């Protein structure tokens, strides 16, 4: 399946792009995105669990099942306010 990735702030600095697509195996869960990002740039692992994912604009845990066409945003530690 193909997902649509969004990168913000420091995640954009690492990815070098604001949007990308990724091909994942059928049945992949959000944890697979974390692994995928580490393969792109190991520094994506530096934030550990503080790097969250949002699927279709809702925070999810790593065991969230993904579906073809999902919008998956990489959310570095937020610092609004």
């Amino acid at each position: 399946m193909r997902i649509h990735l969004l990168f913000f702030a420091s995640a954009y600095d690492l990815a070098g792009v604001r949007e990308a697509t990724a091909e994942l195996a059928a049945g992949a869960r959000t944890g697979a995105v974390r692994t995928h990002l580490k393969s792109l740039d190991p520094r994506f692992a530096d934030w550990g669990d503080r790097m969250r994912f949002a699927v279709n604009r809702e925070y999810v845990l790593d065991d969230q099942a993904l579906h073809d066409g999902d919008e998956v945003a990489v959310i570095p530690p937020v610092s609004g306010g």
Partner: protein
Amino acid sequence: MVHITDKKIVIDDLLAEVGTAASGALNIFVGTTRNRSGERSVLWLEYEAYVPMALKKMEEIEVEARSRWPVQNITVVHRVGKVDIGEASVVIAVSSAHRDESFKACRFIIDQLKENVPIWKKEHYADGSSEWSMHQHEQPVQA
């Protein structure tokens, strides 16, 4: 009502929006950009948002605040883009009949916003460098 804007926030305009003749109390929190970050001198700030999700989370926080306290109006505005030192990056205004609810709901909203709304701050320093803020958040306080 929740807003994200790249314009300077005019507090008086918000007060006109949030005030009513039925409310007796209004609590306002204004987050302003500071000229220091730890030991470093900051020249200006830059905020980036995942706008549709940020608005959705802000609306959810407003709904949750309303379910917890009998407040009247809630306005939350967050700035994006370049923000000069001393300007408001976020303003939260809550009106209610009595003061206790306005304080508690306002505090709840800023705590939740800082934890969960996908907005990021970049500090631009006097030495020409810049960094996305990764400060550990203050612990939310249950008032």
